[in-house]
């Protein structure tokens, strides 16, 4: 087991005109599971590959277990990896594939067998050990790739979008299984994905990346609840966070003729525009009544999408379009007018220029 420390990593690809990773620093504690998530081209895979030793950084250092490995080839870094394409060897049987790392390390026969069988058992591959990869389904190949990675008992486990080639149902099943296995092994894990749900569900910490930088890193629910910038709120969550521009005016957020109470912390922004964000599930809807004291803003339903466990509404109000998540029992139809409650405690505020969270 070992911690991974990445310091000021810079990498520019010869063909690219901007930095793939731009001065990234990251600490992964011993035994921690950190997920790098971000849209394609954000540098997450490049960062992982530099930790693996498959790319050489222009500057900066990578250390594993306190040892500077920046200039070491991949094979001397004591890590293992699951590839997006699986990269299991077609000419070797499942058994030899799982034991590949052990064969390279010239592990003795008895131990080789024990460790291969243990890894196979952990991934339900015992019945397939004597097959060739071509005789396996995609999901089983994926399991072989994971079994090969854990058979070597490496200090650090790297995973590059390991679930992205599985169909949705299998991905969901295997996600939970993967989490269980990694938790049981306690290996330090760095995991790359573009799927925000996967990132949320797997990581002890999630690092949301954008344009070669880490936009925000933290426990999944912290990052989800308190996005440090507009981009993070818009990337994490399905549906993503709602944003609208409002003017702060005497303790209220004003949009056209509508207003909701603003928290006291916005006092400094009086008469200025702010970007407000709110999660779909934090908005509650009520029918419009004649009660003058009724809180909230008026909106009209444009689309209602039942998802089984909830109904996702797309509504339009003075501030634009909002996604609202309601319970499955609510009866609404397009064209209905509603009152939306935007609780002050659930509102997050951002600088409309920079997109960064307001203190």
């Amino acid at each position, binding site marked *: 087991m070992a911690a991974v420390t990445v310091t000021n990593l810079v990498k520019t690809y010869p063909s690219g005109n901007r930095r793939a990773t731009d001065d990234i620093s990251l600490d992964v504690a011993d035994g921690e599971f950190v997920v790098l998530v971000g849209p394609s081209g954000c540098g997450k895979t490049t960062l992982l590959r530099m930790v693996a030793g498959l790319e050489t950084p222009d500057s900066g250092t990578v250390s594993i277990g306190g040892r500077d490995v920046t200039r070491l080839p*991949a094979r001397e870094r004591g890590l*293992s990896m699951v*590839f997006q394409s699986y990269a299991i*060897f077609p*000419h070797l049987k499942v058994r030899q594939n799982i034991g590949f790392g052990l064969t390279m390390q010239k592990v003795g026969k008895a131990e080789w067998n024990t460790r291969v069988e243990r890894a196979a058992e952990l991934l339900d591959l015992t019945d397939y050990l004597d097959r060739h990869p071509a005789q396996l389904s995609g999901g089983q190949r994926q399991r072989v790739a994971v079994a090969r990675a854990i058979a070597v008992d490496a200090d650090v486990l790297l995973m590059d979008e390991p679930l992205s080639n599985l169909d949705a149902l299998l991905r969901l099943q295997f996600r939970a299984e993967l989490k269980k296995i990694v938790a049981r092994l306690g290996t330090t894990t760095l995991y790359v994905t573009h799927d925000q749900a996967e990132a949320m569900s797997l990581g002890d910490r999630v690092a949301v990346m954008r344009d070669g930088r880490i936009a925000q890193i933290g426990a999944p629910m912290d990052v989800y609840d308190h996005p440090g910038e507009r981009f993070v709120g818009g990337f994490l969550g399905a549906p993503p966070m709602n944003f609208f521009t409002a003017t702060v005016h005497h303790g209220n957020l004003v949009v056209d003729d509508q207003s909701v109470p603003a928290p006291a912390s916005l006092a400094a922004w009086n008469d200025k525009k702010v970007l407000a964000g709110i999660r779909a599930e934090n908005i509650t809807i009520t029918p419009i009544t004649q009660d003058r004291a009724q809180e909230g803003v008026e909106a009209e339903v444009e689309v209602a999408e039942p998802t089984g466990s909830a109904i996702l509404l797309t509504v339009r109000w003075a501030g634009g379009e909002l996604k609202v998540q309601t319970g499955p029992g609510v009866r609404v139809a397009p064209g209905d007018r509603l009152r939306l409650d935007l609780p002050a405690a659930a509102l997050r505020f951002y600088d409309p220029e920079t997109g960064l969270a307001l203190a």
Partner: protein
Amino acid sequence: MRQTRPALLLIAPSIVFMAALFLWPLIAGVTQAFHGPDGATTQYVRRMADDPYFWEALRNTALLIVVLIPLQFALAIVMALLMRERPRFAGLHFYIWVVPLAISDLAAGLVWLSIFTDRGYLNSVLDGLGIPTYSWLSFEHPQTMFLAVVVAELWRATSLVFVIVIAGLQGVPRDYDEAASVFGATYWQRVRHVILPQLRPSLQVALILRTILALEAFAVAQALTGRNFPLLVGETYQWYYQLQNPNVATAIALVVLALSIVAAVGYLRLMRP
């Protein structure tokens, strides 16, 4: 049944082609080798076997294959692995290494003759350096004669293997190299455990092709040594043109055919995964 007619129509041209250019000559060849003026005969085969040149040609051809092919494969694989490392000017290297493919064997033989012959380039260089010259291609020096043929054939025919291996290597995804190195494989372990096993089909094709072509080696040796270093196909030429005996020539050609079939089937069986 409805499918048969259009299918037949579609393959008819190639059936006609194969029949006219392969099947018919084969039948004609067998007839010529085993049919004399008085009906079926083995006299041509016996005549072939009684000729000491035949056995020498058989031995030389075998020797050439045994020495040449391992060397060619080793060279071609090393060259292809070097190309895989994407060196600078890779395109230029590839082009230069493939040039011999485009040169006819006879032309290649003549080029090497101008190098190895008594007053050739090699001896001129040696002379210029004050080293005594040597009759490389003299029948008194069978070793250097053989060496000259090997070198010339190596230059001429390695590029074929190289091209096939390169094509095969391109089918081995780089992910495999990366996975192998992450799991602790050194370069040689990667070559041995990952790259070579996946090259097996390409190597098999190259081996069959090269063996058959080496059985047919002729022009280079002919240009360099004449009949001093006889090869099987050279002997068919001798019998056909010099000795005006097409029957014996065909008998030798059938030996080459039989050896080619044995080699191809043997490789396919041996290299079955």
